[in-house]
């Protein structure tokens, strides 16, 4: 097939990608967008198979069949509560693919390359390798194979910056001396190391930002691959992915009122003994606890109930019980709305997917601002497995580590019920004055169990048994 025709197919593919993302701007067109983007990918793959450089198909088929089966199995069977892990893994695979293509290209061409090409290959391999190991680390932390709190040691930031600078120095050296192959492989090794080191000091609840940044890096690596291969569909796709990840990362860090630098180097959320002791004094004797029966009574007599979910909801897999509770309340004529903080959960949009899975219509999932407009009218606000995103200290205490972070104003509701296993601090390691407010009731239990008991009470199951 003529190269012009193949390039035309790539052009159609790129167009499909753009239309696919446009579809995602509205829930009504999102599924169509996904299909259009998939068609674009199919066209690009078919176009590539027609290239005359490809002389044998068995290795391609082998890789595609094994990878396709693995990808399909993960995508079909992973519980949606574990989506952040799946996304982290896929960034790792994306980074690995880009990095390997770059290494293979260098191995093939070596010293024949000009400075421009080696610069692009270096960039591709750098970002690809960093994304690979960084995402594997993020995956490990999310899956709790690795400890989720920040891992810190002395001179950590200094040594990380030094290693990163060394990697960049090798890249620059290679631009002028493309033939120095041992330096190329040292650079690859260092890039793998950098990926591990930069994610080590980042704690679990900062993962939304990290995942978005890794998403962005994976995209940039793909775009760099496009420069190496002089293939424009890769540049378009990489720019879209890189841009998307970057925008999401900005939205996430803005939702925490923190800078990238603070997220990446701040080792935020390292809990100290001292702070734990202070917490105990802070809460001593001021916490009012409640029972599922009492909460059920409160809910039945409410007109508007607002629910603020957090990562704890995903951990205890409580989304289905919560969805049913909302449905039962609605059938009794009580209005139920969900208040979703942008960084609730471990990735952007995490809570929305879980609640949608539990059958909550998307019109009832409110963003931060409409939620806060509605809280003063709510009779009951229920906080399920969230902590820092509902902490009034962010509004009131300028010295607090979460000062200025936009929060859900659950305390404006007439009564607040907090379902939480213990008074353990949230990720920021600060006490939460919400828990001792006079209109707050604490329900100490596992989220799923507590919600089930509330639901049973409302349905009258328990009262009939007694």
């Amino acid at each position, binding site marked *: 097939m003529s190269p012009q025709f193949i390039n035309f197919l790539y052009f159609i593919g790129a167009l499909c990608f753009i239309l696919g993302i446009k579809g995602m701007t509205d829930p009504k067109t999102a*599924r169509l967008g996904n299909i259009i983007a998939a068609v674009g990918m199919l066209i690009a*793959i078919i176009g590539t198979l027609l290239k005359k450089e490809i002389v044998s198909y068995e290795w391609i088929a082998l*890789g595609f069949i094994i990878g396709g089966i693995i990808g399909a199995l993960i*995508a079909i069977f992973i519980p949606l509560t574990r989506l952040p892990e799946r996304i982290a893994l*896929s960034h790792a695979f994306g980074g690995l693919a880009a990095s390997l293509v770059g290494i293979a290209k260098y*191995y093939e061409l070596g010293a024949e390359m000009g400075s421009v090409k080696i610069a692009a290959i270096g960039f591709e391999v750098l970002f690809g390798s960093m994304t690979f190991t960084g995402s594997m680390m993020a995956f490990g932390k999310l899956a709790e194979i690795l400890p989720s709190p920040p891992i810190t040691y002395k001179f950590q930031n200094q040594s990380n910056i030094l290693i990163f600078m060394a990697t960049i120095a090798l890249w620059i050296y290679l631009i002028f001396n493309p033939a120095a192959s041992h330096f190329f492989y040292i650079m690859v090794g260092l890039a793998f190391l950098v990926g591990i080191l930069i994610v080590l000091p980042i704690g679990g609840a900062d993962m939304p930002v990290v995942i978005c940044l890794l998403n962005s890096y994976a995209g940039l690596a793909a775009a760099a691959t496009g420069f190496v291969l002089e293939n424009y569909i890769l540049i378009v796709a990489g720019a879209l992915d890189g841009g998307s990840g970057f925008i999401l990362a900005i939205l996430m860090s803005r939702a925490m009122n923190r800078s990238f630098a603070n997220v990446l180097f701040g080792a935020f959320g390292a809990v100290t003994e001292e702070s734990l002791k202070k917490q105990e004094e802070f809460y001593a004797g001021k916490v009012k606890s409640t029972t599922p029966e009492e909460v059920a009574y409160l809910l039945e007599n409410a007109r508007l109930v607002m629910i603020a979910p957090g990562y704890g909801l995903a951990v205890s897999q409580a989304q289905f019980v919560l969805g049913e509770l909302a449905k039962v309340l609605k059938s009794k004529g009580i209005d139920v709305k969900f208040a979703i903080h942008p960084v609730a959960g471990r990735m952007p949009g995490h809570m929305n997917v879980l609640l949608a899975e539990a*059958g909550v219509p998307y019109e009832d999932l409110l963003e931060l601002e409409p939620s806060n407009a509605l809280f003063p009218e709510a009779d009951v606000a229920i906080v399920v497995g969230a902590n820092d995103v509902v902490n009034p200290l962010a509004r009131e205490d300028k010295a607090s580590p979460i000062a200025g972070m936009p929060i859900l104003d659950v305390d404006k509701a007439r009564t607040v019920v907090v379902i939480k296993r213990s008074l353990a601090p949230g990720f920021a390691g600060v006490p939460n004055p919400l828990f001792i407010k006079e209109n707050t009731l604490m329900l100490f239990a596992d989220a799923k169990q507590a919600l089930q008991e509330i639901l049973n009470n409302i349905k009258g199951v328990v009262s009939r048994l007694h």
Partner: protein
Amino acid sequence: MGSILIGIYIFFLAAFLGYHLITRVPPLLHTPLMSLTNAISAISIVGAMVIAGMKHDLVTTILGTIAVLAASINVVGGYIITERTLRMFRGRGGGKK
């Protein structure tokens, strides 16, 4: 050198277009957006296929095959998981979409 310039040209136009599209995606759909862009960036499979199929030597073939494998996990998985999450989103009255 010319093709690199065209590449930079395309990169910035696509990034600009992407910026305007992506800022219009509601937070409701941020998770499927991420899995979709992730599937799209698995377009590196195009490069990996050429390397795996060009029969240069064993090293490049193996590197290329592993790259095809890694990228196809995202190609196949990315679209399936996006469809799976999007199917969850229902409007009021149970109407699909």
